[in-house]
C-alpha cells in the first residue's frame, strides 16, 4: 500500500484495502463458500415455509379448505369479533411503526464501530465510506416488506393473481423504502426524536385497540363498531399494499414518493455527522451482542431504546430498622429489586402489552381458535417472564452484588423471586381476565392461570440465572454452521420452564374444559417450578473436584 507521491487514497481504495487485507486472512475457502450458500438456501426455504404456513392458516380462517377441529373457534357463540380488515390494517400499522423505530435506532445508515473509528477521521471524501452502509441497510426493510406483504396479500386478496401480488409486493417495497428514507433523512438532519417516540407509542398501543374494539363491541349492542365504520383503515398508507393486491393501482404512488426521498437522502449523505454514525454503529454492536447472548429482552431493548440511561424519580424505602438483621436484609434486597423494576417503566408497559396480545388475537374475526391463542399465550408469557429478569441477569453477571447482604445464597435467590413471581401472577390475571371478557375460557380457567402465574415467575429466574454456554461441548451442524450443544442447552433454559408451568392451562384452554384434577396438578407444577427456579447450581469445578477433573479423594490417595 505504498504510493511514492503524497497523493491521498480515495475512500473507495481504503475500503477495498481494508476488505482485501481482512479477506486474505480469513480461513476456509471453498467449504466456507458452500456453507454460506447452504445457509442462504436453507434460510430462504425456512422463510418460504413459514410464509406458506401463514397463508394456509389465513385461508383456512377465511373458510377456504377443510374445516378442522383444531381450527374451531375458542370464542363464545355470538361474540362480535374485530374484522380481519381492521386486524390486518392494525398489524401493518404496528409493523411499520416498529420498523421505523428500529431503523431510527440502528441508523438507518450504518457503519461498523471500527469503520467509524478508523475511516471517518481520514481527510478523504466521506461519501465513499457512508454510501455502502446506506445501500446495504436498505436490504433489511426490503426483505421485511416481502415477508409481511406477500403472505398478507395472498391471504386477504379476493383475486390473488400473480400480477396483483407482484404489484402489492412492489407497493410494500415502496412503503419500506419510504420509511427507510424518513429515518435516513432524520439521521441526515439530526432530527426526529419526537417521531421515534410517537412510533414507539404506536407500536405498543396499536395492538391494544383490537382488544378495546372487541370489548366495546360486545357490550355496545346496536351501537357496536361495524366493518363499514372501520373500512377507512384500508386507506392508511401502511395498508396500501393490500389495496394493490385487490386491484387498485394508485397506491403505487408510494414507490415514486419513496424513490424521491431516497434520492434526496443520497445527495445529502455526507451531511450525516460522525457522532450520528458512531451512535448507530454502537447501537448495531449492542444489538449484535444481544443476539449472540440469545436474550430476547436485551435484544428488544437494543432495537428500541438502547441501554437505560438518565435518572429516575422512583425512590422506595431501602433502609429498614425494625426486625432482625435477616428480616431487614431481606426487606432491603426485595425493595432494591422492586426499585430496579419500577425504574424501567417501558419494560413494564411492554409486559402489560404482551398480556393483551392473546386477547388481541382472539378478538379478530376467524383468528380466535384455541391453538393459535395457546401458542400466543406461551410466547407472550415467556417474553414477559424474560423481560422481568433484568435484575436476575444483572446479578448473574455480577455475582458480587448478591453477596452484599449477610444472607445465605438460597435466601437471596428466593428474594429474587418475589418481584417476578408477583408480576407474572398479575400478568396471568390480566391475560386470562381479558380473554374471559372476550368469551374465551371460563372463570375456572382464570383460577387455574392464577395458580400458574407464580410458576412463570420461577421461569424468569431460570432464564435470568442460566449458566453461560459450555463452548467445550461437541458441536451440532446447524443452518448457520456448527452450533455448540452447550449453546443450544443454554438457549432452552427458561423457555422450558415456562412451557411446563403453562401446560395444564393450555391443555384446558384447547380442550375447552377444566377438570378438577387440573388444579392439584397445576399447584404441584408451580411448586416444582419454584423449587427449580430458585435452585442454585453448584459450579462445575466443585462437582468434579481436584485438578484436571481427578476426584479429590482419588488424588489424595
Amino acid at each position, binding site marked *: *500500500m505504498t504510493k*511514492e507521491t503524497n497523493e491521498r487514497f480515495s475512500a473507495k481504495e*481504503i475500503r477495498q484495502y481494508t476488505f482485501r*487485507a481482512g479477506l486474505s486472512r480469513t480461513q476456509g475457502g471453498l467449504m466456507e463458500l458452500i456453507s454460506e450458500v447452504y445457509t442462504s438456501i436453507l434460510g430462504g426455504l425456512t422463510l418460504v415455509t413459514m410464509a406458506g404456513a401463514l397463508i394456509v392458516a389465513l385461508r383456512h380462517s377465511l373458510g377456504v379448505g377443510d374445516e378442522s377441529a383444531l381450527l374451531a373457534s375458542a370464542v363464545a357463540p355470538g361474540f362480535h369479533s374485530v374484522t380481519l380488515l381492521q386486524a390486518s390494517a392494525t398489524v401493518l400499522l404496528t409493523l411499520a411503526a416498529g420498523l421505523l423505530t428500529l431503523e431510527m435506532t440502528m441508523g438507518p445508515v450504518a457503519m461498523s464501530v*471500527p469503520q467509524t*473509528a*478508523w475511516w471517518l477521521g481520514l481527510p*478523504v471524501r466521506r461519501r465513499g465510506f457512508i454510501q455502502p452502509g446506506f445501500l446495504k441497510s436498505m436490504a433489511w426493510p426490503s426483505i421485511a416488506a416481502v415477508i409481511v406483504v406477500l403472505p398478507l396479500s395472498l391471504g386477504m386478496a379476493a383475486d390473488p393473481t400473480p400480477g396483483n401480488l407482484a404489484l402489492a409486493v412492489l407497493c410494500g417495497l415502496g412503503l419500506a423504502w419510504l420509511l427507510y428514507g424518513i429515518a435516513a433523512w432524520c439521521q441526515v438532519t439530526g432530527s426526529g426524536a419526537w417521531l421515534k417516540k410517537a412510533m414507539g407509542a404506536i407500536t405498543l398501543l396499536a395492538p391494544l385497540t383490537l382488544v378495546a374494539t372487541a370489548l366495546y363491541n360486545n357490550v355496545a349492542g346496536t351501537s357496536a363498531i361495524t366493518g363499514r365504520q372501520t373500512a377507512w383503515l384500508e386507506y392508511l398508507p401502511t395498508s396500501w399494499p393490500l389495496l394493490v393486491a385487490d386491484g387498485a393501482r394508485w397506491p403505487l404512488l408510494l414507490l415514486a414518493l419513496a424513490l424521491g426521498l431516497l434520492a434526496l437522502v443520497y445527495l445529502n449523505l*455526507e451531511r450525516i455527522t*460522525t457522532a450520528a454514525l458512531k451512535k448507530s454503529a454502537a447501537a448495531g454492536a449492542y444489538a449484535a451482542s444481544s443476539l449472540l447472548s440469545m436474550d430476547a429482552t436485551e435484544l428488544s431493548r437494543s432495537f428500541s431504546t438502547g441501554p437505560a440511561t438518565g435518572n429516575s424519580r422512583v425512590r422506595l424505602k431501602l433502609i429498614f430498622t425494625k426486625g432482625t438483621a435477616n428480616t431487614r436484609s431481606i426487606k432491603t434486597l426485595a425493595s432494591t429489586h422492586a426499585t430496579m423494576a419500577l425504574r424501567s417503566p417501558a419494560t413494564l408497559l411492554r409486559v402489560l402489552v404482551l398480556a393483551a396480545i392473546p386477547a388481541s388475537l382472539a378478538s379478530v374475526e376467524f383468528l380466535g381458535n384455541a391453538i393459535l391463542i395457546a401458542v400466543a399465550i406461551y410466547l407472550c408469557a415467556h417474553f414477559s417472564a424474560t423481560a422481568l429478569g433484568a435484575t436476575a441477569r444483572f446479578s448473574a453477571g455480577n455475582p458480587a452484588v448478591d453477596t452484599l447482604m449477610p444472607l445465605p445464597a438460597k435466601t437471596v435467590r428466593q428474594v429474587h423471586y418475589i418481584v417476578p413471581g408477583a408480576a407474572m401472577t398479575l400478568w396471568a390475571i390480566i391475560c386470562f381476565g381479558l380473554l374471559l371478557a372476550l368469551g374465551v375460557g371460563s372463570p375456572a380457567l382464570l383460577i387455574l392461570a392464577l395458580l400458574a402465574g407464580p410458576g412463570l415467575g420461577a421461569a424468569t429466574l431460570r432464564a435470568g440465572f442460566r449458566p453461560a454456554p459450555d463452548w467445550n461441548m461437541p458441536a451440532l451442524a446447524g443452518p448457520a454452521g456448527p452450533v455448540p450443544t452447550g449453546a443450544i442447552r443454554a438457549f432452552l433454559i427458561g423457555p422450558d420452564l415456562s412451557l411446563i408451568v403453562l401446560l395444564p392451562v393450555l391443555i384446558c384452554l384447547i380442550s375447552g374444559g377444566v377438570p378438577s384434577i387440573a388444579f392439584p396438578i397445576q399447584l404441584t407444577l408451580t411448586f416444582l417450578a419454584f423449587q427449580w427456579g430458585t435452585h442454585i447450581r453448584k459450579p462445575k469445578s466443585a462437582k468434579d473436584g481436584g485438578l484436571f477433573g481427578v476426584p479429590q479423594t482419588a488424588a489424595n490417595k
Partner: protein
Amino acid sequence: MSKATNHSGANQHHRPIPARKDVVRAEKLQAGYAGKAVCGVVSFSLHSSQSLALVGPNGAGKSTVVKTVVGQLEAVSGTTLINGNEVDDRTLDFRREVAVVFDDDAFFPALTVEEHLAIVCAGHGVDEVEDVISAELEFFGLSALAKSRPYNLSSGQRRRMLLAAAFVRPRSLLVLDEPEQRLDTSMRHKLAARLRAEVDSGLALLVVTHDPEFLITVATKALFIADTIHAMTPGRAAEAIASENPHAD
C-alpha cells in the same frame, strides 16, 4: 503535506503554523449532555507551540469538554473555533489538521497493527509509508507485534497502537484524553518527552491528564475543570491534581 523524519525516534508530522496564531479558541464554552452542563464555562485559546492540560477530579467534565471542543458532542452554549473555523468534523480541513486519540477500543479484527496504521497513512497521503510506520512502531515498542492483530495485544499495547496512529499522520493540533492510561512508566516518560519536543517545534496540544509528572513535562498551561474553571501554571496544576483541589498550595 510536509513530512520531516527525525531518526531519534520521533517522526514530527505536525504542520508548521505561524507563531501566535490561534489553533483553538473556545469562547464561553459549556460542555454537557442533552443541553445540561456538566462543568463551568470555559474560555481559552491555544496557539501553535503551546500545550494546554485539562485537569480535575473524575467526573468533573474534562473529557466532555475535549469532546465538545473537537465536535464529537454538541456544546450546551458557546463556540469553538479551530484554525479560525467553526468546528465541523465533516470538513476535510478539520480531519487533515486535527488528530484525536480517545479511549476507543475499536479495531478491525482481521487487520494487523501495521495495516491499521497503513489505513491512516493512506488517508492522509503520507509518503514513504513503510519507513514512517516502522519508525512509529519502534518508538512505541510494537515492532515485534507489527503483524499481530489488535485483539491479541494487551490493553496497554492497544493503547500504544492508537497513539502510534496519531503520530503516523500530519497534524497541527493533537488532542489526547489521558494518554498516560495503561502505559508503563518508561513509555509514559518517552511519550511525554516526545510530546514536549513536538510542542516546542510548533504542535498545538490539548491533553487531559491525571499524571502530575506527565503534566509538568508536557504542558505549557493548564485549566482545572470543576463547577468553576481555574486557569493555572503546570506546576500549580500538578499540585492541584495531587489534592484534587484548585486552591491547594
